[in-house]
Structure formats: structure tokens, C-alpha cells
């Protein structure tokens, strides 16, 4: 390197590490900035100091408010210098400092002077700086200059004003909109970039006026737009006009000819923009697509990676909706599999997988196999997902695709990648019956050498469900038992559970399973993990599980439970929220009495909406539903059981959310919680006294049940005193027919003795006056007898119910606001838990199916399938299918809907 002149300090040691900013320090640079105040300015040194300040900011250093202000004031002094290079750095510095409003005033006059300078560079930059830092009030002062600048004959000045206008439109639209005449003139500019900036601004000014936009597009598409960027913009605007006018299906599509013409433009960016626009036209025909596909195909063999990427990405999207249109590109696409750029190669492969036909699959898989070994996991996952879709499309080809998946399963890869493969195999097993046996075998082989405990346990669980249903379940036993011998405790425990499932389902295998389970009794090591492996882990270790299953299955010759119980136990999904179970277990104190599983609250406390995520688009393979947070029901139960009058009511079935019985900001605030028991209902009135000068005593609610004939009052618990701002409770209990979901309306009157309180001492007077206060009515409705209890797999749960108890009927819901509104009304009427995200409805859908589950009073499991349809008059019809453990309950659900 022959640059002797550069070496200012020859004594530096490390040549490679040399940087003019080596050892730079903020404090020192801020000191240096004092030279800005010198009466005799040295422009070159000043420029250097600004560069050093900018370097610090660029490296992420920040200035304190005081430092920034000091630098700013110092920099403003530099306007005295006539040095153009320094001025340019001053502009840059002011923009970086983003000064406050009162600081802006200091530089306004200097910048305004520059805005009217004869030097183009000053004008252009002063406009950009001033518009960046200005506020609305100042803008009106400089508006005149900006309008002039827009039509300035110097393109740099015009562009500066137009781009500033685009930014200002966000904050001061009413001012910028007044410039539209000048902007329109600038659209005709001969300078390419000015035209681009003017078009962008003009469109933004008019974007809410469809007719004006349409006119603008019509006139410009006929004329000559010089700048490629402006042409791209025009293509976007034209596409938007097409989209908005697409309901007029008569004749040719407007502007299609223009778009097609752009495919012959000399600039690649315009060709591509037009091709992409055509592929995105709604309802595009194959005739319209052809010319666009042709140019994209040419790009596929370009020497520029960016061009190949853009083309293959667009074709990949087209392949989702018009696979046939893309097949012509298959040969070019295949050569991209070996593209140096892995993003391009992956896009090419997934496109081929989408457009491939049955006959090409085998050849394609061969090519992909070579490719898979040298791409990153993230790309591999994309490919695996594409192969899964392909297999579902061509189920006859499952053999080669399944083989491919099992081969890559054996190769190196991280957890996410392996999980994607396993998920895909599981989905193929579920959806393609012929693929089941080979798929299960592949999974068995995989767990022989699987480093991921999670995947092993999930596969064992899946094997326990699907394996016993195959033609020869015995061939899986060896694989499962190997896990018992060779694995860590977690996997061993799941393997034991899987063995038990085979034992329960396949009588012929029972004796063998007993032998194996007995061997497990000698297991040396215990698993220790918490609640993540469903309820089986309640029974803790490998040995414990083996003992339990031997008991359950009758292998030790003692208690033999009924076949149904065994299967419920082994296969049933956990029907309590895990969080509730965890809380109950934590509260359980070891004692003579065993932990009672049925004491765990089953209500799913509804989650805050923000936490709910939109239902994922990808099909899920393995995995359990997420647990819901626990209810406050524990606290209620404790409170109620402490009141002797209510202690005989038995187990609390459900507590409602509090219902307000007073308006906001009244003298007394009262809300009520409805506690439902099997034979009783307790109203818990939560009262607050909001008057500092009063003390209430003997507070009770007088309930009139004339519109609730099935209820009769059996007990009440008054509140002895209710001082100011200290909430208290009073209770009223009713008897109702056992197990019957009685409904009714209750009117409530708050009765109490009121005593004056001396505000200075806080003491109440001795004598009080009896008074009453009317509360709002309260209703007990059908939903009060329904617990929100989710199921993990709705379809399985539904299929396991007795079909004779299913009740189906149709209902007209009349005109509704929207489908979503109708669905949520029915959900809240029934008070059930929506499953599998079916409570959210895509906007504009005309029909929807919603799945609900719950437990009805008397501990009856209820599943509901609701199918909704809405017509153009917003009339909603609904088909309601109910199944439950009890036909009376199925009928009762219909009753609720019919009377609701």
C-alpha cells in the first residue's frame, strides 16, 4: 500500500486496527466542540469535530439533554462561516440533534436565509433541515418558499421540497394539501426523481378521493412517465384502482393493457413490479397470467441473485393458487435447486413441491435429498412442511414421501427440525390410513436413537393410541419395552404408560404386558418431574406407574375395574385445568384422607382477551392444549364453608362473576355473586358504604321470590356493621329442587339501621333509624348451571359419546348485527367453554362452526356443535347439535336455546 502521506502518527503499533477514531471519548470531543465559539473559525477543524460528534452518535453514544443543547448552540455559531463543506456538516449535525422547539427558533432565520440563497445546494439542504425540525406554526411562515421550491428549476431543490412535503403531510396535512397545484406541475417535470417524488406526494394528497386517483392514473398511464421509480409507483396505484373497481365485471379489466405494456419496459424493476402486480390481480385468469409468468421465467436464469430471488419468490406465491400456470418454469426451477443462494434454492424446491404432479415426485425427491444435507435447519423445516402438504395432496405417493421423511429423521438436526418431521409423520399417519403402519414403524425406529426426551415421550403417547389399532400390535412392544430398559426416567415412565395402553386394548397381549410391567416394578430410578406429562405423573415414578397399571388391568389378580373405567383412565384426556390441579395439590396436606381428584375445580377462568392468540394456520401435530388459569373459586369455597348455615349444602358447583346491583357512584354500592350448589343457591351480596357520615348496622337483603317460584329462602346471614368504605358481605340462601336448573328473577331490597357518625371523632351515635334501599333485580339463568370446562380434542371427545343421546335441531336467530355477534350471544347464553379457537370468526365469513364444551349441574359432560349461517339480509340460522352423558341434559340445552 503506497500511501505514505496518510500516516500521520507513525508510532502506531497495530496497522490493521488503525482508525482515525481510535480511543475517541465523548467528553474530549465535547471539549473540542468549544472551538465552534472561536471568533476566528477554522472550517476544516470544525468539520472534523462535527464528524467526530457524528461518529459518536452513529456508534450509539447518546448525549445528555444538556450536552445536546450545548453542542446545538455551538453549532449554530458556524452559520457565520461561508465554507460550503462546513455548512453541509452543520446541516447534518442539526438533523441528528433533533432540537427542541425553543432551540429551533435560534436557527430558523439562518435556515430561512439559506432557503433563499442563490446556491442550489444551500436551498435544497436548508429546506430538508427546516422541514425536519419545524412545527406547524413555523410552517405557515415558510409555506410560500416551499411552494416555490417545488417548481424550482433545479431538480435537487424541487425533490427536497417534495420529499419534505411527504413527511409533513403526516403532521400538517391541511397545509401540504394547499400545494397540490405546484405538485401537479412537478409531476410533469423532466427530471426523473422529481417526477417520482411529485407523484408520490400528489397521490398521498388525493388518496381519499377515489375519483381523483382514478383520473390521475388514467392520464399518467397514457403519457410518458420517465423515471422507473415513478413507473413502479404508477403500477401500484393502477393495481389499487383495479382492486377497488373490481366489482364491475363487465368487459376487459381496466389498466391490464398498461400493466402488460410495462412488462416490455427497459428497467427491470418496472418489469418485475408489473409482473408481480399481474400475478396479484384478484381472480386473475391464466390468459392474463401468461405474459407475466414468461418474464418471470426469464429472470429465473438471470446472473443476478436479486433478480432470481424476486422471480422465484413471486412464482412460489403464484404456485399456491395457480400451480398449473407455473409448471412451464419447472425446468428452470429445478436448476435453481443447486443455486449458491440457499434462499433461492429453498424457494425453488417448495415451488416445485407445489406444482409437482404425481409422476414427477420420485425424481424430485431424489434431487431434494442431495440438497437437504447442506442447508440450514430453518430452510429444512420449510421443505418438510411443503412435503407434508404434497403428501396430503397425493396420498398414493405416501410411500416415497414417508421414506424421505424417515431418512431425514435419521440424519443430524436440531429439535425444531426433528419436531417438524415428527409432526408431519404424525399428520400423515392420521390422514392417510395406508401410511399408518409404516409411519408408526419409522417413529419406533426413531425413538431407538432419539436425543430429545420431549419427542420420545410424545411419540410413545401417540404410539399408545394408534399402535393397538393396527393389524399386528405385538411388533411395537419390543420398541416400547426397549425404552423402559434404556432410557431416562421420564421416557421410561411414558413407555410404561404406553405398554399399559396396549394391555388394555389388546387382550391377546395382556399376559405379555403383565410380565413386562412386573419387571418394571424393579425399576431402580424414579422420575421426578412436575405436572407436564398430564395426570399420569400424579402417580409419580416408573415403579408406581407399573404397580398402578397392574392394578388397573387386573394383572396382580386383585381389583379388576370395568373395561370402560380402565379405558377412561388410560385414554381419557385430563378434564381439569392443570393450573387448578396444581393449586389443589399444593394446598393438599398429607393426611389420612387421600387426595380427592374430584375436588379440583374444573372451571376455566376466562383469559384476558389480550392473551388470546389468533388460531394458528399450521396444523398441529403433537402436543397438549394449553392450561387455563385457575378460578377464584377456592376463595369462595373457603368463605362459604366457614358459615355454619351453609356447611350442609355440599360441594360448591359454580360461582358466577359479580353482578352489579347498583349504579356507579350511588350511596351504597352492592354487587352479588351467585353460588350454585346441587340443592341450593346462595347469593353473596358485597356491600360498600360510600357515605363517611354514616354507619350501617344489621344489613340484610330482603329478597322477593314471586318471580322465582322454585326457590324458597332457607337461611340468611346479616352483616352486623358496615362502616364507611369497608366492604362487607351479607348472604341469603335458597333451596331449589335437586339437580334441576331452576331459573327465576329475584327483586332485592337492602334493609339496614343507619347511624350518624361524628366526623371529628369517628364515633357513631347510639340511636339509629331503620332504612331501606332498592337494589336492581337479579336473575338466575341457565348458564349459571354450566361450568366452562374445555376438552383437549373435541372430535375424540364427541366420538366417544353415545350417539343416541345426540340431539340436533335448527333455529332461526332473526336479523343480527353480524355473524360474530350471533355466535358470541349463543356462547354466553349457554355459558360454555369454546374449544379449539372456534369462538373467533374470520371477518366476512358467511358461515361458521363453533365447538363448545362444559359440565352441567349434576356433573354431566356436555358437548355442543353450533353451525351458523348468515344471509344477505343478516338473517342468522343456526343448527345446534348437543351430546352429553344424559339425554335429559341434551334436551335441556335445546330448551335453553329455544327459550333464549
Amino acid at each position, binding site marked *: 500500500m503506497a*500511501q505514505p*502521506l*496518510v500516516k500521520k502518527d507513525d508510532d502506531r503499533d497495530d496497522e490493521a486496527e488503525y*482508525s*482515525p*477514531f481510535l480511543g475517541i471519548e465523548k467528553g474530549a470531543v465535547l471539549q473540542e466542540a468549544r472551538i465552534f465559539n472561536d471568533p476566528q473559525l477554522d472550517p*476544516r477543524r470544525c*468539520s472534523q469535530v*462535527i*464528524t467526530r460528534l457524528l*461518529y459518536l452518535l*452513529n*456508534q*450509539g453514544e*447518546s448525549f445528555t439533554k444538556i450536552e445536546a443543547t450545548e453542542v446545538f448552540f455551538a453549532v449554530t455559531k458556524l452559520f457565520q462561516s461561508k465554507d*460550503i*463543506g462546513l*455548512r*453541509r456538516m452543520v446541516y*447534518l449535525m442539526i*438533523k441528528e440533534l433533533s432540537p427542541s422547539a425553543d432551540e429551533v427558533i435560534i436557527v430558523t432565520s439562518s435556515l430561512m436565509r439559506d432557503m433563499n440563497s442563490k446556491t*442550489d*445546494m444551500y436551498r*435544497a439542504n436548508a429546506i*430538508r433541515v427546516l422541514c*425536519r425540525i419545524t412545527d406547524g406554526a413555523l410552517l405557515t411562515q415558510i409555506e410560500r418558499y416551499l411552494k416555490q421550491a417545488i417548481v424550482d428549476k*433545479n431538480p*435537487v431543490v424541487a*425533490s427536497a421540497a417534495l*420529499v*419534505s412535503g*411527504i*413527511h409533513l403531510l403526516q403532521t400538517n396535512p391541511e397545509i401540504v394539501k394547499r400545494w397540490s397545484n405546484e405538485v401537479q406541475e412537478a409531476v410533469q417535470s423532466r427530471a426523473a*426523481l422529481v417526477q*417520482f*417524488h411529485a407523484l*408520490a406526494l400528489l*397521490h*398521498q394528497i388525493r388518496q381519499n378521493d377515489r375519483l381523483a386517483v382514478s383520473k390521475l392514473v388514467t392520464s399518467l398511464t397514457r403519457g410518458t412517465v420517465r423515471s422507473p*421509480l415513478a413507473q*413502479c*409507483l404508477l403500477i*401500484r*396505484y393502477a393495481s*389499487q384502482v383495479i382492486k377497488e373497481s373490481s366489482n364491475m365485471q363487465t368487459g376487459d379489466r381496466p389498466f391490464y393493457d398498461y400493466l402488460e405494456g410495462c412488462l416490455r419496459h427497459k428497467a*427491470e*424493476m418496472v418489469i*418485475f*413490479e408489473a409482473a*408481480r402486480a399481474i400475478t396479484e390481480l384478484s381472480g386473475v385468469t391464466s390468459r392474463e397470467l401468461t405474459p407475466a409468468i414468461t418474464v418471470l421465467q426469464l429472470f429465473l436464469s438471470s446472473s*443476478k*441473485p*436479486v*433478480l432470481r*430471488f*424476486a422471480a422465484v*419468490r413471486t412464482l412460489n406465491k403464484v404456485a399456491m393458487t395457480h400451480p398449473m400456470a407455473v409448471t412451464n418454469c419447472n425446468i428452470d426451477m429445478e436448476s435453481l435447486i443447486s443455486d*449458491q*443462494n440457499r*434462499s433461492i434454492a429453498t424457494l425453488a424446491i417448495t415451488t416445485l413441491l407445489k406444482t409437482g404432479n404425481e409422476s414427477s415426485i420420485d425424481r424430485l425427491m431424489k434431487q431434494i435429498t442431495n440438497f437437504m444435507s447442506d442447508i440450514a435447519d430453518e430452510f429444512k423445516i420449510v421443505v418438510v412442511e411443503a412435503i407434508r402438504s404434497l403428501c396430503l395432496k397425493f396420498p398414493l405417493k405416501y410411500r416415497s414421501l414417508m421414506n424421505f421423511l424417515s431418512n431425514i429423521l435419521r440424519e443430524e438436526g436440531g429439535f425444531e427440525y426433528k419436531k417438524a418431521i415428527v409432526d408431519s409423520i404424525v399428520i400423515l399417519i392420521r390422514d392417510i390410513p395406508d401410511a399408518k403402519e409404516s409411519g408408526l414403524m419409522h417413529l419406533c425406529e426413531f425413538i431407538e436413537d432419539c436425543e430429545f426426551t420431549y419427542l420420545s415421550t410424545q411419540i410413545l403417547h401417540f404410539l399408545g393410541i394408534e399402535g393397538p389399532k393396527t393389524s399386528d400390535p405385538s411388533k411395537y412392544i419390543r420398541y416400547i419395552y426397549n425404552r423402559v430398559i434404556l432410557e431416562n426416567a421420564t421416557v421410561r415412565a411414558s413407555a410404561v404408560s404406553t405398554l399399559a395402553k396396549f394391555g388394555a386394548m389388546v387382550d391377546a397381549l395382556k399376559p405379555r404386558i403383565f410380565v413386562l410391567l412386573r419387571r418394571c416394578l424393579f425399576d431402580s430410578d424414579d422420575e421426578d418431574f412436575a405436572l407436564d406429562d398430564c395426570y399420569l405423573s400424579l402417580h409419580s415414578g416408573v415403579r408406581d406407574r407399573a404397580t398402578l397399571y397392574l392394578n388397573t388391568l387386573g394383572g396382580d389378580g386383585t381389583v379388576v375395574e370395568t373395561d370402560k373405567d380402565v379405558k377412561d383412565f388410560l385414554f381419557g384426556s385430563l378434564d381439569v385445568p392443570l393450573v387448578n390441579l396444581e393449586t389443589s395439590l399444593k394446598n393438599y396436606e398429607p393426611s389420612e384422607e387421600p387426595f380427592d381428584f374430584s375436588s379440583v375445580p374444573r372451571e376455566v377462568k376466562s383469559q384476558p382477551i389480550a392473551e388470546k392468540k389468533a388460531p394458528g394456520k399450521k396444523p398441529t401435530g403433537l402436543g397438549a392444549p394449553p392450561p387455563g388459569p385457575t378460578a377464584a373459586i377456592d376463595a369462595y369455597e373457603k368463605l362459604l364453608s366457614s358459615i355454619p348455615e351453609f356447611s350442609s349444602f355440599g360441594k360448591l358447583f359454580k360461582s358466577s362473576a359479580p353482578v352489579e346491583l347498583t349504579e356507579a357512584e350511588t350511596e351504597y354500592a352492592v354487587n352479588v355473586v351467585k353460588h350454585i350448589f346441587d340443592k341450593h343457591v346462595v347469593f353473596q351480596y358485597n356491600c360498600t358504604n360510600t357515605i363517611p357520615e354514616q354507619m350501617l348496622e344489621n344489613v340484610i337483603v330482603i329478597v322477593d321470590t314471586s318471580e322465582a317460584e322454585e326457590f324458597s329462602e332457607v337461611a340468611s346471614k346479616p352483616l352486623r356493621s358496615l362502616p364507611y368504605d369497608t366492604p362487607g358481605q351479607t348472604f341469603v340462601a335458597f333451596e331449589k329442587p335437586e339437580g334441576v336448573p331452576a331459573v327465576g328473577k329475584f327483586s332485592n331490597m337492602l334493609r339496614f339501621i343507619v347511624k350518624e357518625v361524628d366526623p371529628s371523632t369517628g364515633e357513631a351515635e347510639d340511636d339509629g333509624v331503620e332504612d331501606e334501599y332498592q337494589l336492581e333485580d337479579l336473575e338466575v339463568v341457565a348458564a349459571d348451571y354450566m361450568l366452562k370446562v374445555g376438552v383437549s380434542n373435541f372430535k375424540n371427545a364427541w366420538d366417544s359419546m353415545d350417539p343416541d343421546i345426540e340431539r340436533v335441531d335448527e333455529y332461526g336467530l332473526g336479523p343480527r348485527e353480524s355473524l360474530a355477534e350471533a355466535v358470541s350471544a349463543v356462547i354466553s347464553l349457554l355459558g360454555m367453554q369454546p374449544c379449539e379457537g372456534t369462538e373467533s370468526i374470520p371477518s366476512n365469513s358467511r358461515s361458521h362452526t363453533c365447538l363448545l364444551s362444559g359440565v352441567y349441574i349434576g356433573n354431566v359432560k356436555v358437548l355442543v356443535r353450533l353451525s351458523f349461517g348468515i344471509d344477505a339480509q343478516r338473517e342468522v340460522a343456526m343448527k345446534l347439535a348437543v351430546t352429553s352423558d344424559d339425554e335429559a341434559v341434551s334436551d335441556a340445552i335445546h330448551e335453553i336455546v329455544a327459550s333464549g
Partner: protein
Amino acid sequence: DLCPSVKNILLLDSEGKRVAVKYYTDDWPTNSAKLAFEKSVFTKTQKTNARTEAEITMFENNIVIYKFVQDLHFFVTGGEDENELILSTVLQGFFDAVTLLLRNNVDKREALENLDLILLCLDEIVDGGMILETDASVIAGKVATNILDAGAPLSEQTISQALATAREHLTRSLLK
């Protein structure tokens, strides 16, 4: 909004450290978010060969176009729906303008010694995300004019003039 826009322009060295960067959106609100983005972009592209033609990748729902020369890595980032070729034009404009301004000695040391030119160059390419100019000779001309000839109108700058002024500036900075 339908207007093409640029989210950031990055100039990093061969270890992924900043030479000069400019962000135009709030996608990376803090300096640490910016550094994290630069680190991942650098790591992801490091092993690719982007020395003859600009390369491209998708990254966290962004398109990143990049080109390397010597120990300098140039990046331009845009949204996932952006026209890749427009972003590529911006990168090419930046890359070529820097090449002109550093008179073909494009490496980290030259870039740091002429950091003022690099920063001015960024300032002339994109303004608040909006593409200002993509023609390298015009960009370099605007940057160099500032330093040399106050009186000459910008539009009359030609590529050779731009080169000459850049060269002139460099020599002066070497001699000082």
C-alpha cells in the same frame, strides 16, 4: 402506504462492527435492538459470496440486499413486500457512490478516514425512508460539490467531475 421505502442502510466492517449506519423506521427502537439486528444480519450473510453481484436474503420479515468489498459489508433493508429490485438499486447507488468518493480504494480505513463523505452520501440517498436519489454519479456529485465548488449548479455535474472533486478532496485531506 404504497410508496417504496427503505428501513435502514448499514455499512459494517468484516467483523460486523459499525462503520456507518442509518435507520429510517422504529422497527429497532433502541441502540441494542439495532446492534442485535446488525449482528444477526452480519452472521447470516458472512459466509456468502456477495463480491461480484449483490446477494439477497429474507430475514425477520425483511428483505436484506447486500454486497461486500474488501473488509466492508454494505446492506440495505426493506419490508417483505418491497420490490427487491428497487432495494437493490438503492444498494447499488450507495455502493457505487462510495466507490467514486473513495476513488476505488474501498476499504474500512478509507471509509473511516472519509467518514464525513460516507455520512453525507447516506444523507443524499434516502430521506426518512423515502428514496432521494439512486444514481451513483449524482449522489457522489452532490456530496463532492459541497466540499469543492459552491457556485456550480448541481445538475451540471458529470460523473468525471464528481470523480475529480472527490479526488481533489481526498488529496487535500491527505496533505493536511
